[in-house]
Structure formats: C-alpha cells, structure tokens
C-alpha cells in the first residue's frame, strides 16, 4: 500500500506541477490569447498602470493617439465614453468570433473608422483607420502626404516592409502604407504580437 500511496503522490505532484495558468480554453469564452504572457493581457496591465499614474490618460504622450474634434482616441482605451462623444456612426458592422463570444465591432464615421474588441466584457479600441485627408494624425500627417514629410515628422526609427512604414510607441502601432512616395493608408493598431 505504501508503494500505491507513493505512486498516487507522484502523479498528483506531476499534474499539479504542470500547472500553467488558470485560464483554460474552455473558461476563456472570448477566445483571446489565454497564456499569462499574452500581449493583450500585457496591454491591459500597462493600461491599468497608466491609469494609476494619470487618470486622464488622454494626454499621455507615450503612445500614438488620434485626435478629432477635441476627442482623443487611444488604442486599448474603453470605447463607451469615446462613442458617447462621437455620436452615431454612419455605419456599424459587427463580426462575432467563430465559436467564442468575442465580438469585433466596426464603427464608421465620416473620415475614420474604429474597430473594437471585447476585453473582460468591455469594448476597447483595437484599431483606428483614417479614411480621407480631412483628418490627420496628431503629429500632422495626412493621407497623400509625402514619405519625406512622414520621416521628417516621425523620424527614421520605423520598420518597413512592402511599403508599410510602422512606428511603435508602448502598446500602439502607427502604420503608414506608402505607394508612389505618397501615404495612402494610415492606421493605429494595438500591438498584440511578441
């Protein structure tokens, strides 16, 4: 019986020792990255820390933010208060995740589009896309600006691939697609990859 007890103890310790984290795919109904090292988790934590330091994080300069009509929109920020200020979108589209309960929502306004994702039951900003040249980045780059102007404003610390210039600050990524030396797409996104 002693041997049996030892075997059981070893198995129990083995199983317990293999613990990774408490979130399993089954209880993680939104299907987000479920590992403790997930970037969305990290993004959330960074956001929490930021909130502690500066409750009005709209003025935080450590990330790229989009400003329109005095409203500041930051990636990973809670969407509810932003939508209240922006009013009714021109178009709304929602894309539920396959199988899981998360919902990607796209709000289209006159000159920009906001995509949200669900995090712990709240809608947060996943991306902002500028649609025409009546709006610009906070630093002043419009659609159809030249690549020289782009680099003059944002510097040369970018990653470039297939004409896509990417700048990162904290959890935000600001991407410019350049064709024929002109910026043809501007997008703010949440950094979610390692």
């Amino acid at each position, binding site marked *: 019986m002693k041997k049996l007890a030892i075997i059981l103890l070893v198995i129990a310790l083995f199983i317990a020792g293999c613990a990774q984290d408490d979130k399993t795919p089954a209880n993680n109904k939104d299907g987000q990255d479920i*590992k403790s090292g997930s970037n969305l988790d990290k993004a959330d934590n960074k956001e929490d820390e930021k909130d502690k330091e500066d409750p009005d994080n709209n003025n935080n300069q450590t990330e790229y933010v989009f400003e329109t009509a005095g409203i500041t929109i930051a990636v990973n920020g809670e969407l509810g208060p932003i939508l209240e200020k922006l009013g009714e979108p021109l178009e709304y589209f929602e*894309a539920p995740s396959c*199988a899981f309960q998360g919902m990607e929502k796209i709000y*289209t306004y006159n000159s920009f589009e906001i995509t949200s994702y669900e995090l712990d039951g709240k809608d947060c900003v996943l991306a902002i896309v500028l649609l025409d040249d009546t709006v610009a980045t906070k630093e002043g780059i419009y659609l159809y600006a030249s690549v020289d102007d782009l680099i003059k404003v944002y510097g040369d610390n970018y990653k470039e691939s297939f004409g896509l210039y990417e700048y990162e600050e904290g959890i935000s990524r600001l991407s410019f*697609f350049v064709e024929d030396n002109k910026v043809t797409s501007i997008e703010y996104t949440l950094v979610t990859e390692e």
Partner: protein
Amino acid sequence: MDKKRIILNIVVVCLILFSLYILQNLLMPKYVSAIVEGSLIEEYYNEKADYNHDIIFIGDCEVYESFSPISLWKNYGITSYIRGSAQQLIWQSYYLLEETLKYETPEIVVFNVLAMQYNEPQKEAYNRLTLDGMRMSASKIRAVKASMMEDERLIDYIFPILRYHSRWNELTSEDFKYVFKKDKLFHNGYYMRVDVKPVTSIPRGRKLANYQFGDTAYLYLDKITKLCKDNGIELVLVKVPSIYPVWYDQWEQQIEDYASKNDLLYINFLELIDEVGIDYSKDTYDAGLHMNLTGAEKLSLYLGDVLTKTYDLTDKRTNKEYQEIWQEKIDFYEQMKAQQYYELEKYGYLKSFGAKAPED
C-alpha cells in the same frame, strides 16, 4: 515476488490508469451547451459508416456552416461529411485529411480556401477546438506540432489533464453528465442555425502590406493537393460567400492561378450570388459572416449540381442500406430544424443552441 503479488500490482496500476482516464474525461471541456464547435471534430468517430463518403469537406467555419450533407443526400444521393472546425488552419486541415484517409477514401475532397490567409499558429483556444477532438494518432501529433503557439507543449495535448486540471473548481453538472458520451449535435459535421440576421453593411477591406499567401500556407496546400492525387481523389477548392473577413482580389487571383496550375476545380461562390440565389437579408444568421440553414441548403444544391455534372458520382438513394442510414440522419435534421424554429418563435432566439439573446 509471488504470482499473487504481481497480479495485485498489475490491478493497482490498471486502477490508477483508469482513474486518471476518468478524471481526464471529467475535466476536459464538453462543448455541449456552449462553444459547441469544440465537439465537431470528435463527432466524426461516432459515424456509423462502413462505407466511404463521396465527399469530405475540410476547412474552417465557412465549411461547417455553408454546406448541408443532408441536403446533398436528399437532392443528389451524395454521401458526405464535413471535417471542419472553428478557425481550422490549413495544416490542421491537411492532418485531418491524412487521418480521415485511414478510415475511408472519398471521391472528392472540398477545401475552403479562406484558411490560406494564415501562415502561422494563431491562438491556443482555437487549436484546442480542433486538436482535442482528434483521436490519438501520428497525424494528431504532427497536427499539434504544426499548430502549437510558442508557449504550448506537446505533452499537454497528449495528456489533456495536464492542461485542464485547474478546471476542477468550475465543473458543472454537464461535465459529469457527458463524461463518457455526448449528445449528437451536428449533421455529418454541419452546424445548423435557422435564425436570421440580415446584412446591413459591408466593411471595407483594410489595406494589407503584403497580399501574398505565406510559404507555409502554400506548402500545406501543395501537400493537400498531393495527398489527394496520390489517393485518386479529386480536390475541389471553394470560397463560400461570406462577406467578412474580406476576400481580397489579390487572394482570389492567387487561388485562381493555383487551381489552374494544378488542374483543380475552384468555385468562388462570392461571384455566384445570383446563380445560387443567396439573399443576404434572409440567408445568414450573423449579418453575412456565416450562412444559416436556408443559405447552406442553397449552396449545397448548387454545389451538388456542379459536382454531379463534373464527376462520376453515383446516386445512392435507391440503395436500401444507405436509405436506412440516411433516413435516420434526415429525421434528426428535421427534428432539430423544427425545434430551432419553435425556439425562434417562442423566445426570439435559439435559446438552447448556443445563440445569444438579442439585445433590447
């Protein structure tokens, strides 16, 4: 050591292993009343078929919500099974097909090409929905190795208890009820939804830096093509008419080129909306991402027509053995259909089929 003692030790070890097996079954998610898509892959093994299906479908949600094997049987006498799962990546499709060929050799394999957009593993949660349902085999091990995220481990898939042991404090009556056997939820891999949510807007496609499908995606598409050719199976590529995620023209061109180069039939249903008769105000249950029952039946009718005209498929509806097997499937299909329409009428949504209550 005497004989009695050896026998006793063997019995003890067997008891321990059996207990662990039960414990593992208990702790694993059941995917019966929520996230039912997690049950799709394993339901195939309960198929009472000692015959080859004419068609095997592989791919992501776009296959298991767009084609109805029951409709293909009723209208053309075609036998089929959908081995689809949520966000099934192309290497998972390949290994699922490899595994399926150990059980049967279909005439045709239909692969939905949306999965070409992914060139690397995406999320553990989705990996689990496909891989946990696969029976242990060399194909499963290879599928797991190809699918794992950086911080996942092969051993957690071989012994899922290592991954799910922390579920002990969230077990529900459902976990106990389905320890050994689960209810049948699908119709030869088809996930039925009769509810309707019309398309109201179509999102614009975001610009991508690079529209070229990745090397890994192409590698596995080549492997699927070769596996089919080696086994005398016709491979058919399809793109179902979902309006989102956006199917870019550049992606379309690559698939057209691939199909042409490899002499494959490719059907892009996005270009056949009128011919098929898809009505986006009636034939989708989530505003255009997936087809509902009426949409799936229309697509099946069109696909069956194309396939029977293109390939040498035998209508099996006059075969008594098949008739009996498929009548049972039709009965279950009609019963679920009636139940769903009833719930829709009574509650306004599919209360017991995993649908979300409409917001006020």
